[in-house]
């Protein structure tokens, strides 16, 4: 029992550190990829290939002046970025990072919490995420920040609907809300993306909107709203907001990989004949590769597409994605019924 608790604590801290390090280096990779897309090199001065750039950026954010507007609500102003960061880090608990590890005959699952309503948990946490932005924008007492916050909340609420609807088909197919169960059912190459391509597409689009990434980065829309919801933030509070975005990218990549790309499963998973622990490591790396792939897609899209106009965003969400998602649910239901 004690070993299990220690193991869980270790795993939780490992995943925490992993998300933070990945988010840290995502900022570098984002800038590198942006550079390459624009025929530039990207940052390459701080350390070899710019590897120390995230450290330099972090250091800079820590040492910057901590500015707070005089008319800001102090408590909420601090709560905003804290909540965003907190919520961003919470989601990873329900994600199965790999198959079980066996040490001395005892089985340790590579998942912090095997909640039997894993998907609901993830979505519950995701919807809290909007509060961080809303509170921060509201507390700044700045019209641009408020506009950004209002945009963010309406955008995230609108796209959550289509997102949940696209997930319902996965739940219908697997008959379970547990992330672990859903991954187990995608064993080998029975990935959900092959059965639910439309659902995946809808989920992908909604994930962009949920993480406030381009082309749906209207909440921060620097051309119209100065800096959007974080206009009045500086120093590490701003850092938290920016950082949370990258953690969200990482986690949403993990969720997408788990729900649609078979989690840690890969074709030919049974033929390798590895010992359980090596196998667990390989599987984890496979999952990580899939997440990296999604991270790259995020950046690829960001440096390809211009920002949507707000009415286009709303039209896409309410008039296209939600009807499509409902249609997808209906079709899936009919097919499941016919196959019974």
């Amino acid at each position, binding site marked *: 029992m004690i070993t299990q608790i220690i193991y869980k604590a270790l795993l939780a801290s490992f995943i925490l550190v992993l998300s933070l390090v990945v988010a840290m280096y995502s900022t570098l990779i984002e800038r590198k990829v942006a550079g*390459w897309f624009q*025929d*530039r090199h990207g940052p390459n001065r701080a350390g070899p290939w710019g590897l120390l750039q995230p450290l330099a950026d972090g250091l800079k954010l820590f040492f910057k002046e901590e500015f707070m507007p005089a008319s800001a609500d102090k408590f909420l102003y601090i709560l905003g970025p804290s909540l965003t960061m907190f919520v961003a880090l919470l989601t990873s608990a329900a994600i199965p990072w790999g198959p079980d590890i066996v040490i001395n005959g005892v089985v340790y699952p590579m998942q912090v919490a095997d909640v039997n309503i894993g998907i609901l948990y993830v979505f519950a946490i995701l919807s809290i995420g909007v509060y961080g932005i809303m509170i921060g924008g509201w507390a700044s007492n700045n019209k641009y920040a408020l506009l950004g916050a209002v945009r963010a909340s309406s955008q995230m609420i609108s796209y959550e609907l289509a997102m949940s609807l696209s997930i319902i088909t996965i739940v219908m197919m697997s008959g379970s809300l547990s992330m672990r169960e859903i991954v187990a059912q995608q064993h080998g190459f029975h990935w959900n993306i092959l059965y639910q391509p439309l659902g995946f597409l809808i989920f992908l689009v909604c994930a962009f909107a949920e993480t406030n990434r381009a082309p749906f980065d209207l909440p921060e829309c620097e051309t119209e709203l100065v800096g959007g919801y974080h206009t009045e933030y500086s120093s590490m509070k701003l850092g938290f907001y920016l950082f949370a975005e990258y953690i969200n990218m990482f986690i949403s990549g993990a969720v997408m990989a788990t729900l649609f790309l078979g989690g840690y499963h890969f074709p030919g998973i049974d033929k390798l004949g590895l010992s359980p622990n090596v196998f667990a490591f390989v599987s984890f790396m496979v999952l990580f590769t899939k997440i990296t792939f999604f991270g790259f897609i995020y950046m690829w899209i960001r440096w390809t*597409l211009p920002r949507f106009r707000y009415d286009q965003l709303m039209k896409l969400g309410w008039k296209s994605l939600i009807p499509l998602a409902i249609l997808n649910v209906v079709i899936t239901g009919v097919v499941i019924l016919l196959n019974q």
Partner: protein
Amino acid sequence: MKNLTNRSKIVSNKKMSFRERIYFPAILGGMRITFGHLFRRKTTVQYPEVTREFSDIYRGKHVLKRDDEGRERCTACGLCAVACPAEAITMVSAERKPGEEHLYREEKYAIVYEINMLRCIFCGDCEEACPKEAIFLTPEIVKSEYQRDRFIYGKDVLVEPADPAKRVDVSKRQTAKVLEFKKDKRYKHNK
């Protein structure tokens, strides 16, 4: 109006077709284009390690030339300061004392000669105005500084070293054609 290129497209506000309305073909097309750029040759010049190729007659930092015997050519006539459109050049003249003949070529010389590099627009008019072939622009770049007053270059920076091996070569800016041009009758004083 006649088109300058044949790449212009006629824009219309027609309703988008279904293909256009679902965005995805266009998005994939865009992603293909950006992906192509991922492996292109980078256009960046990695400056301190690599320098861009400069023209031989690049107009950079000035040099005050000495003559073959190592004497300063400048005679503080002030024509460069007058010609300067940015009013970057100031000078104070002084009379050559007996015994200083090996230092200054003429009886009058510039005891102070300052160019404000923040004002200078590197047009080269000073060089063109100079009757004594004393000032030239070189391909050397004016370095960045932390203080503004350090951009005012005095004689210590501008005058070339007397050591013949360390002389600044301006032959590219002083071709036969240029010399011929300077012999124009309007420059009679230049003989």
